């Protein structure tokens, strides 16, 4: 059992959750969804085992006006086009590389202590999230068994009809993208923007210094 202990040592608990999810997606013949979570799982394993040393520099931060502009532009595309159109897919696919870019930034030192309020909040949100996921799964399984989504509605069953209206689609996309901005913390206020710019400038100055040092060593006999 020691080899197993070593194998799973340091594993992120999202990974088994994704494994169950992948199995579930393939069982319900949602192959695209299964592939999406499979690719993410592979990336997580590569990151966990330090097999993909990928980083796109310091965490990028953006001004509020640019974020609003992008959100409005994306929401407008969804508003003017019918649901499930090619344009919708392009918007979603365009967001993907930005999201990847915002995941692979340089590791930062975390200045947060895992104190009692944080522990309490973290556990509460996690517990409620798991509870919601279990309710959704139960609704899906029961509605599938008894062929009755009316009485055992999943979130998709409740939300999907409303998304046929362009106005609702617009609002949902704004909420969804705002959630993304919040999760990736790319809007961090003027002070943080300045701090990140400063870190970038310090990095550039260090690189210049190294380059000059190399040049000097080449000139010297």
């Amino acid at each position, binding site marked *: 059992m020691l080899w197993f202990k070593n194998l799973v040592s340091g594993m992120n608990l*999202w990974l088994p959750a994704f494994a169950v999810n992948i199995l579930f997606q393939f069982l319900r013949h949602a192959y695209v969804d299964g592939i999406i979570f499979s690719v993410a799982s592979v990336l997580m394993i590569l990151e966990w085992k330090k097999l993909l040393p990928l980083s796109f520099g310091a965490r990028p931060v953006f001004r509020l006006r640019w974020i609003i502009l992008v959100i409005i532009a994306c929401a407008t595309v969804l508003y003017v086009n019918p649901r499930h159109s090619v344009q919708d*897919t392009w*918007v979603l696919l365009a967001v993907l590389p930005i999201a990847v870019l*915002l*995941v692979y930034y340089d590791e930062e030192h975390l200045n947060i202590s895992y104190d009692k309020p944080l522990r309490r*909040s973290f556990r509460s949100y996690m517990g409620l999230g798991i509870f919601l996921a279990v*309710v959704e799964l139960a609704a899906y399984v029961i509605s599938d068994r008894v062929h009755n989504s009316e009485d055992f509605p999943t979130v998709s069953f409740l939300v999907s009809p409303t998304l046929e209206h362009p106005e609702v689609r617009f609002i949902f996309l704004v909420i969804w993208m705002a959630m993304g901005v919040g*999760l990736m*913390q790319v809007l961090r206020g003027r002070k943080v923007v300045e701090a990140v710019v400063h870190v970038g400038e310090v990095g550039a100055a260090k690189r210049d210094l190294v380059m000059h040092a190399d040049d000097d060593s080449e000139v010297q006999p």
Partner: protein
Amino acid sequence: MKPSTYIWYALYLLPLIAMFVIWWLGRIKPHLFARVSTVVEFVMAKRTTRIAVVTVWWWLGWHFFSD
């Protein structure tokens, strides 16, 4: 719609209301609950977790708007 269906609505709504209450408490009683931005920063500190959370977020958009 059966009366039992309302239970499902309650099962979806109650956790969301509870999350809203925790978010609110984080703002007015910081000694009890941390602010949601602090929780997000703590959760997103690990890159593997970031990959998972961003995947779930992106998939939600994909599922509702495009899939």
